[in-house]
């Protein structure tokens, strides 16, 4: 049975169902990360001593990773725009670039941040700052990993749909892009909160 409104617009919402679905999902994600930001504020405001964050984490690494993630957002939206312009080859290049940049982000995070910190004995049990640092950036990193898996699917096995139903495939990339930009958006707020304040 064919799933309705994956390409056609519903009259009542003016949207396709996947687009409404992803926005509702992102709304729930706002509350998930919002709870962590709320915890951060409460724990920091309520603490009698808090480490100087910019001395605990590497600001340069955080800045580089911010640039990497912003660049991946651009390649993601360019992948979608390429499909809109019927240029499948460019789409593949841009989506592969998005995946590559996401992997660079994770590699930097794991090998230049997490592992050295753990080797120096800084783990989530060290203090409230490190508990929040690992929880918030760890949850964000899991979202990056999820995005890589989805995008890798669309790059290789899922790309077959471009031949059979190009409009639906383009919509799928738009939905995956909305998720990816949201992950970028979360990092835009995480970066100053964890690295700079």
């Amino acid at each position, binding site marked *: 049975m064919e799933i309705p409104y994956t390409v056609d617009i519903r009259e009542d919402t003016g949207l396709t169902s996947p687009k409404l679905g992803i926005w509702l999902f992102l709304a729930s994600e706002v509350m998930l990360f*919002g709870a962590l930001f709320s915890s951060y504020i409460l724990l920091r405001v309520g603490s009698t001593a808090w480490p100087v964050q910019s001395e605990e984490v590497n600001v340069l690494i955080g*800045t580089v990773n911010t640039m990497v993630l*912003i660049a991946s957002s651009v390649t993601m939206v360019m992948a979608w725009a390429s499909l809109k312009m019927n240029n499948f080859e460019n789409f593949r290049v841009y989506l592969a670039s998005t995946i590559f940049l996401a992997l660079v982000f994770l590699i930097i995070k794991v090998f230049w941040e997490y592992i050295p910190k753990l080797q120096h004995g800084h783990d989530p049990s060290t203090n409230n700052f490190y508990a929040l640092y690992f929880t918030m950036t760890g949850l964000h990193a899991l979202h990056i990993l999820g995005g890589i898996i989805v995008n890798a699917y669309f790059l290789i096995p899922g790309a077959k749909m471009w031949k059979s139903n190009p409009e639906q495939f383009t919509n799928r990339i738009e939905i995956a892009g909305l998720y990816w930009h949201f992950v970028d958006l979360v990092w835009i707020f995480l970066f100053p909160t964890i690295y700079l304040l």
Partner: protein
Amino acid sequence: MESTTVEEIRKHTWVYLTVFGGLAMLTVLTVAVASLEMAVGLGVTVAMIIAALKGSLVASFFMHLISEKRVILVILIFTFIFFVLLIAFPLSDFLDNAGKPNVP
């Protein structure tokens, strides 16, 4: 996003690249401002204003909210209200009890 003509999309690609330039500059600005000596409250305010500006650029142009349907904007307005409550309620409770002894 409803614009479908190739020419329109081609114009949008220039917008995306311009937004990327803006986001990169704002990132550098965030780091530069954070390195200045200023009061904690002022530093937090400035950092969050710049982050909000960057977030608006991503949401408006990459996520196409600038031309999105009303129903999505309504969902996001509700989300924003609940997000503010999520931050404000615990914080106001904490501030109300600031300085009072902890009673088990």
